[in-house]
């Protein structure tokens, strides 16, 4: 087995396996929300917008950068794992061979973005915006080369910092309570999911609040828009459950009552939805009616709490989870149409309570799950 194949097996393939949920979400966000017949024209318009507006290019560059950061973090975390210490032997290879092997691994994990960037750059050359096209090529080359340089430095000097994220700006020395553990996890280990989810949620919410889909105000439309934004949080919730069952397992041995455990998670999701609350406050009173500003926060927290609670029902797998989310969204959609707002909130919290009490103590992570 060549070094490239070995690195692929240890880094490349696990990258896609562990991020299957993220890629599924990305796929749905990019290709699932537009009807098949309009898919090509939709992406052509999107690419042209990227190439013609430098402001839009900067926004997209930021998202690409986040993906590059995600790849970098994944590789560095793999290199920090005890069982992967043998990889440091690659530090003894001739520089050229080492570079080649790591370049192939980096290109493999960077492939989804690289392919899209290549299409953007090609379109740029064809449609007469060569400066933007060259920028795209240089930008991605720099991300890859800089990452490779850092990997090689790490492989040659294993003691040069155990894990980069520990020195990231998101580490503060304050007393942390249980809900904050999740916020810290989000800011330290789930940055890409956090930013992509919130961007998606904000765009949808702003579109609905600004009457993009309907000229006259209707609380039901805002609620449906919010529901679409909440659905985008499903990957984040899934990652939280994985975090709970792996690194927070000790919490099950702590004397915390069942209701307190559930309330803690309700606090977590209330904090997660703070950006949305700010959007609602900013939209009030011009674009949001007084009644709606009260039930929207409860709706959001209840919905995410229910997503979280259904993941206690074994087995915990993404496919079954997405089926549940689809079913919940369908039910809520019809209840929203009939203006049953109070009933929806009672139903969401009631169902979350039911699933939590029914399955929390019966859940056990077994081989093959997540």
């Amino acid at each position: 087995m060549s070094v490239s194949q070995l690195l692929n097996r240890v880094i490349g393939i696990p990258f896609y396996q562990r991020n299957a949920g993220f890629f599924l979400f990305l796929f749905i966000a990019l290709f699932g929300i537009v009807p098949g017949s309009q898919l090509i024209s939709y992406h052509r318009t999107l690419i042209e917008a990227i190439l013609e507006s430098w402001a839009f290019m900067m926004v997209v560059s930021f998202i690409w950068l986040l993906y590059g950061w995600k790849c970098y973090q994944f590789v560095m975390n793999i290199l920090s794992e005890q069982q992967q210490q043998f990889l440091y032997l690659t530090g003894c290879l001739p520089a050229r061979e080492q570079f080649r092997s790591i370049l192939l691994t980096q290109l493999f994990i960077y492939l989804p973005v690289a392919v899209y960037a290549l299409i953007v750059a090609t379109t740029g050359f064809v449609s007469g915006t060569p400066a933007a096209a060259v920028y795209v090529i240089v930008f991605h080359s720099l991300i890859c080369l800089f990452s490779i340089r850092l990997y090689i430095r790490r492989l040659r000097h294993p003691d040069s910092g155990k894990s980069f994220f520990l020195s990231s700006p998101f580490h503060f020395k304050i007393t942390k309570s249980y809900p904050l553990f999740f916020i810290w996890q989000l800011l330290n280990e789930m940055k890409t999911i956090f930013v992509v989810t919130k961007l998606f949620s904000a765009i949808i919410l702003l579109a609905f609040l600004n009457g993009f889909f309907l000229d006259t105000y209707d609380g039901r439309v805002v609620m449906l828009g919010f529901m679409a934004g909440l659905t985008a949080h499903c990957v984040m919730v899934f990652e939280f459950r994985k975090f709970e069952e792996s690194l927070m397992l000790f919490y099950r041995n702590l004397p915390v009552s069942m209701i307190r455990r559930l309330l803690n998670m309700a606090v977590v999701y209330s904090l997660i939805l703070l950006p949305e609350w700010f959007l609602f406050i900013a939209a009030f009173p011009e674009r949001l009616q007084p009644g709606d500003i009260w039930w929207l926060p409860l709706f959001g927290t209840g919905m995410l709490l229910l997503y979280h609670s259904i993941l206690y029902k074994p087995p915990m797998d993404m496919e079954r989870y997405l089926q549940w989310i689809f079913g919940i969204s369908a039910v809520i959609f019809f209840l929203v149409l009939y203006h049953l707002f109070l009933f929806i909130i009672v139903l969401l919290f009631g169902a979350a309570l039911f699933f939590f009490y029914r399955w929390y103590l019966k859940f056990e992570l077994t081989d093959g799950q997540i």
Partner: protein
Amino acid sequence: MIQLQDIHKSYNQQEVVSIPFFTFEKQIYWLKGINGSGKTTLLKIIAGLLPFEGDVVIEGKISLKKNRTEYLRLVNYVEAEPLYPSFLTGLDLLQFYRRTKGGNKEQSDRLIELLQVSSFIGNPVGTYSSGMLKKISLLLAFTGQPCFILLDEPLVTIDDKTVPVVNSIIRDYHEKQGIIFLLTSHQLFETDAFHVTHQLKMNHQTIHPL
């Protein structure tokens, strides 16, 4: 006195633990058994980490199934290879344990001093070696007012200097507070450190006195 009542645990229709009845008196127990015999599963069951059939009851009245919160206040557990979020510091964990398990500052300060963790307890656990992590997990296991402490391989990865310290804490907790210990270890406990009154063997899914 802690009773295991008709405990059964299976994976894929294969029974891994089956204990009709067993009583832990106020003693120190050393649970032995080959790899895969079910020692860790049993410890996790008693610690409330795994679902199972049956019940564990403290002093005939505090049941794991019926009085879970009260039960967990009295049972502390440390894993053989503990895992914590890497961004938390040892101090974050200690404060979190103190808020839930109880325990006071004097107790924590004494344990920090005994286990010699003061130099790194304020750093994120992601920067710890496996031995440092083990010391923090032992510190957490001795926090609060438990009546039953379960230690899975307590001596693995800790340095030679710390082994007698851990032994003396176990002896102190047992002699002064009457705490029951259930230990698993492939290493030999020093015979003069504390008196292991009962040696048990996990075999054929159940516990046998040796």
